[in-house]
């Protein structure tokens, strides 16, 4: 029983992070109908940036956190301006390949800057003493992770429902041209979505860094898992992303615990295939699956 609880807790921790990465995908998808295959690279850059500023330069954790997220958000803006805006005929496949190119490029940059070695990163929690919970150990870092994810989820929800900018963004997500006619600067909303999405990726990177090793090639799998979680919950649905992420994390953790660690990556995608075939719109998604 305590073993099961242990798997459950560690599953929820990684699942929360998958959910946050998925949220990054969703924010961008809602605003632009685009899936950014470089999202995982933003996660990686967030983690490594936090390592450099916090552990190497010696900034306090909060400052390093904020700075890493800001820099990566700017990179998100840059990606839209430099690589995606100039495309004349924005065919989805073309855009996918461009973001794949961007992800390879960013991975190359990271390999130059940080080398190929993995780094271990100090956590946000002051103590590393685990909390005992019915026989299972809970690391303080896990509490931080879940707390931060919940905070960002609620923050984003409130941003969308309560602020003018957030409402404008939602309007763009529903219908870009209609929003534009009503005087919403949809171009700027797209930029904002890129920055927000990259920033969320970076936050995920900062909080996952202490529980895994950080290296230049960590992004690909994390990005795919986040994408998987977004699909699982229903592409475009924020609460779906959270649900999909946690479900994915828990199933993975149980799979690793009861079978073998080698099948970790297969679990996520097996679940996804089943969901896609049985209920293609995802758990909380709208039923029509027609948008590219």
């Amino acid at each position, binding site marked *: 029983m305590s073993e099961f609880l242990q798997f459950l807790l560690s599953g929820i921790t990684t699942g929360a992070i998958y959910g946050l990465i998925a949220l990054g995908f969703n924010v961008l998808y809602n605003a632009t109908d685009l*899936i950014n295959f470089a999202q995982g690279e933003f996660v990686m850059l967030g983690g490594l940036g936090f390592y450099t500023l916090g552990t190497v330069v010696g900034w306090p954790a909060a400052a390093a956190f904020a700075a890493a997220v800001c820099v990566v958000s700017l990179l998100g803006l840059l990606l839209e301006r430099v*690589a995606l805006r*100039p*495309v*004349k*005929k924005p*065919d*989805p*496949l*073309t855009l*996918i*390949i*461009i973001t*794949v*190119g*961007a*992800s*390879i*490029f*960013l*991975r*190359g*940059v990271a*390999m*130059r800057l940080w080398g190929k070695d993995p780094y271990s990163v100090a956590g946000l929690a002051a103590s590393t003493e685990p909390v005992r919970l019915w026989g299972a150990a809970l690391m303080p870092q896990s509490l931080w992770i879940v707390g931060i994810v919940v905070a960002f989820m609620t923050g984003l929800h409130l941003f969308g429902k309560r602020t003018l900018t957030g409402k404008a963004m939602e309007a763009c997500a529903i219908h870009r041209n209609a929003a534009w006619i009503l005087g919403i600067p949809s171009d700027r909303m797209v930029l904002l979505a890129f920055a927000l999405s990259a920033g969320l990726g970076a936050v995920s990177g900062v909080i996952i860094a202490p529980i895994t090793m950080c290296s230049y090639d960590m992004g*690909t799998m994390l990005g*795919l898992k986040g*994408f*998987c979680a977004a*699909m699982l919950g229903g*592409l475009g649905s924020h609460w779906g992303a959270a649900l999909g992420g946690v479900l994915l994390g828990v199933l993975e953790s149980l799979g690793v615990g009861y079978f*073998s660690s*080698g*099948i970790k*990556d*297969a679990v*996520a*995608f*097996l679940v*996804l*295939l089943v969901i*896609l*075939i049985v209920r*293609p719109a995802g758990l909380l998604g709208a039923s029509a*699956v*027609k*948008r*590219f």
Partner: protein
Amino acid sequence: MAALGVVVSNPYEQQLLTIIGIHTLLALGLNMLMGYAGQISLGHAAFFGLGAYGTGILTTHFQWSPWASLPAVLVFAALSGYLIGRPILRLSGYYLAMGTLGLGIIVHVVFREWDTFTGGASGLVGIPPLTVGRLMVGLGRSGFFAVWGTVVLFFVLCGRVVDSRIGRALRALGDSPGAAAASGIHTAHLKAVIFSFSAVMAALAGYLYAHLLGFISPSSFDFLMSIRMVTMVVIGGMASIWGSLLGASVITLLPEWLHVFSDYEMMVYGLILMVVMIFLPEGLTRGVLDAVRRTRARTASS
């Protein structure tokens, strides 16, 4: 090409040309699915690996002759392609992309983890080469001719398919699935058939790859390989048979040329991918043809 095979005697270049041939087979098969039928697959390395591991396991663990394993592998690829394609191709767009991506990753994990048969992460060694009488087909000139012979065969075959009734149905499907269905095309069946066809081509490429190299490991059939295959199709030009050849050549040669950049190799590769897609979204074949046409029009008008 045959002339090239006789002229080039440097083993490194022969080997490179042979690999280009294998990649051309992969790109051509995927182009039939993506370019003509308009169905994306981000997991086609699974079928490439299926061919390679299928024949690898049959010939090393069960001592089959490579010639006996060829039909077995191709039939298996065709069946699994159809059976997987039927449900998965009901999806479209990103959902299809994600479904096929997941398939590719699951198959890759199976190659890596099922080590009693696949040799696990360290790979499968000692796959026997193909033999014709006393001639052993290796990576040298014989392999070159074997691979490019197959490529030419499939160029002709695909050219015929594209100009046939099935080819027109495929393009109709790619342009508008609804209109295709309304004109009496059984779209679900047709999609699965073309998926199966491209799976067979990928498996055949894998079969050749395994027997020429004699060694395979899971990293040759991972997610990045699937992406590389899609890139070959898109860079070369969708719905273009010659584009597949061009795309496969460029994507295979690029890393070789980029070796001079050593540590910057990955950055330059990513940049080239982005630049080509930003400025020539129709792919190199169409892009170059259009540029030629524009210059001609300009000189004609002036």
